[in-house]
């Protein structure tokens, strides 16, 4: 009986110890995250996908292809207040594709189909061109490839879509592989207060 109690006590103590060690480790990681003073971010005035005047150039997909994560920590974000809510959005449709029977481009732009298109406000059931549309990016699908950003840029669009680093996903690598690959040095490590 006493041997059994002793064994339980030992196992219990060990389990509590392991839990404490794990908790301490997690707390440490969170503390580091919470206390970090720098974080990676994208300067949209340097990023070739959003930089004004960078026209007729190929889209840069380094944010999607060079992150160490399977799905990059970078996402495209549509700032609704700057969006034209167009019937035919060049970031949603491949506007160079053939016109379909509905009068719309027959192909979408996003290779991961990560943009949702929804008519908003009062809906005209007879003529969809009479509606305004909201374009929302599904962050579970977006990998930050930047194609929509490039096509939304002035003068084709209004530049409402841009790339952003999701800090709850980013591992904060000291030597970020996206930053290393970025041809425009747009991927920067900034003081956290400015991110």
């Amino acid at each position: 009986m006493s041997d059994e109690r002793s064994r339980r006590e030992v196992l219990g103590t060990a389990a509590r110890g392991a839990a404490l060690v794990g908790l301490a480790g997690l707390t440490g990681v969170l503390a580091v995250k919470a206390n970090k003073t720098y974080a990676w971010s994208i300067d949209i005035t340097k990023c070739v996908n959003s930089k004004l005047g960078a026209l007729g150039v190929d889209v840069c997909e380094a944010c999607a292809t060079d992150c160490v994560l399977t799905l990059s920590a970078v996402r495209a974000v549509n700032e609704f207040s700057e969006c034209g809510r167009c019937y035919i959005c060049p970031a949603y449709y491949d506007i160079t594709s053939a016109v379909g029977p509905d009068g719309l481009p027959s192909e979408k732009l996003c290779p991961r189909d990560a943009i949702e298109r929804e008519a908003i406000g009062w809906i005209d059931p007879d003529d969809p061109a009479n509606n305004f549309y909201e374009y929302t990016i599904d962050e579970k699908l977006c990998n930050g490839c930047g194609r929509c950003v490039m096509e939304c840029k002035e003068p084709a669009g209004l530049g409402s879509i841009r790339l952003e680093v999701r800090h709850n996903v980013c591992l904060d690598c000291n030597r970020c592989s996206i930053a290393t690959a970025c041809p425009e040095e747009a991927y920067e490590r900034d003081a956290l207060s400015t991110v």
Partner: protein
Amino acid sequence: MKLETNRAIASNQFSEALRGVALDGEGRVYAVGDSSVKVFSSEGELVRQWKTALPGQCVAVDDGGRIWVGEFEQVEIFDAEGRLADTWKDAGRLGLVTSIGIRDDDVFLADATARWIRHYNRVGEFLNNIGDRHRKGGFHIPNGVVDFAIDADGILHVANPGMHRVERYKPDGELLGHFGRFDGRDPAGFPGCCNPTNLALDSSGRVVVSEKAGPRIKVYDPDGEFLEVVTDDLFDPAAKNMDLAVDAGGRIYVADPVALEIRVLSRRAETVP
């Protein structure tokens, strides 16, 4: 016939912005940009210039030779010598004025803030809106500009770029019809999110339009049938909202907002071998 560009006007005259172009009956060219109006002879010589109170967004010349300049929440009216004759304000109603049309006793001001056209009489009394009955609540102008022209019958032809259409309205606001459709491949259609951005009419009623991304000039017949692309390789790719005017000889004047000069496109008979 072939269209070719043969000259530019107003080169090195504007430093920040060139937004509007208009012609008078004598062939003089009026350009508005920065915060000034500049008048050029038909040969392109600068003959007069003066300041505006606010940055000019558009310019028009009435049959009496007065120059109307659209600005934010007001219109300045100058005599032919550039002296300020009047300033129209319509507090609470008039926003950014991006196009002006004057015919007989009617004055039409494109209000890009409301996305409508305001109809006044010659003494500045408001009569009605045009475009306010649109199901989109007004013209859909992601580019921020409403542009229109008035034909010989007093009908307004309005660019509605978000719907890829040119719409025709009576002065009382009744929609008479429209032409245009989206197409990113066929030049007969309007490409991108929002084209055409600007338009003008020639003396035969043909509709000349400018587009953005990529910038080009096209012509449609009065019924909306596509006639031709005038040019698609002349302008900087960033050029947009290129204002237009057409003279009696069919020459097309394009306010180039990137090169900051007025491009003159003229027809030339092709040499027959």
